[in-house]
């Protein structure tokens, strides 16, 4: 799984946001991410599969495998629904 090209992730005054870089910026396309969201997004940029994402989550955060899987699946689903996957 990999994200489409043409997004920029940045932290502005403590707020992590993702923006499309296309000329006609539609602000409804601005996505705010929390820390975990950012963690997954950055891995999706490089291309990562669901099981890798869960593994990385377990290394980074003190959560159960069940919770991590749930979170990753939910996040990836949202990314997919919004058409951000390549």
């Amino acid at each position: 799984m990999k994200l489409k090209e043409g997004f920029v992730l940045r932290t502005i005054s403590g707020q992590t946001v993702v923006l499309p870089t296309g000329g006609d910026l539609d602000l409804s396309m601005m996505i705010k991410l929390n820390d975990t969201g950012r963690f997954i997004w950055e891995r999706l940029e490089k291309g990562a599969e669901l099981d890798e994402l869960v593994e990385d989550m377990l290394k980074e955060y003190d959560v159960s495998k069940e919770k991590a899987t749930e979170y990753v699946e939910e996040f990836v689903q949202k990314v997919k629904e919004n058409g951000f996957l390549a």
Partner: protein
Amino acid sequence: MRNFTISLAGFCVEINSIFETTRIFCRDYLCEGVPEFSVTISPENITFEREKSAKEDLLEGIPVRQFSDEYLETLAVYRKICAKLLERETLLFHGSAIAVDGVAYLFTAKSGTGKSTHTALWRQVFKDRAVMINDDKPLLKLTSDGVLVCGTPWNGKHGLGCNKMVPLKAICILERAEQNTIHPVDAAEALPMLLQQSFRTGTPNGTVLLFDILDKLTKRVPLYRLGCNMDPQAAVVSYEGMKG
């Protein structure tokens, strides 16, 4: 081709324009000196501006406005300059900037909300103490001493502004309201509006540069939200809320 040099936000810029009118448009900003960079206008740049403007009119649902090549060239010049200025921590920000006692306040809002109307109230209330820096498209320059608002020739349809650089005291998002109220807002809340009102290149590199400028800007300059009516008292409430 016409060739001339202007000083904008303290940067010396060489312009190669098709029309003499662009030099006249920039007359208050002409300078001598070694340019830091130059911009050159081609007929394609003018076509781009015409198509972009038509597209925006269609999006807004208004009849497509017709503009002269001369006018469109001024837009093309500013677009090219602003893309270069992003690399120099200087941002075109859509708003009305007015200085009182030598420090500037920048009002921003969607078109038609009444930015210019509000700064007109400031001039009415503060009279000689108030100086319009730019009524439409000022430049914001990040410096080690803080943020400067800089006058530019692109100062709106009434040509309100001057060739001055003034420290920026605050940025204020303006909304119409029955009562006049002002309160501070944090960067997260203001961000969508700030992004909307900032010059964007539509390129990945330009977007990264813009994000970094906005990050620094929101750390250095306090942000407010003003609900205001058209009474001169609105200027008083707004000034008292931000002057610190």
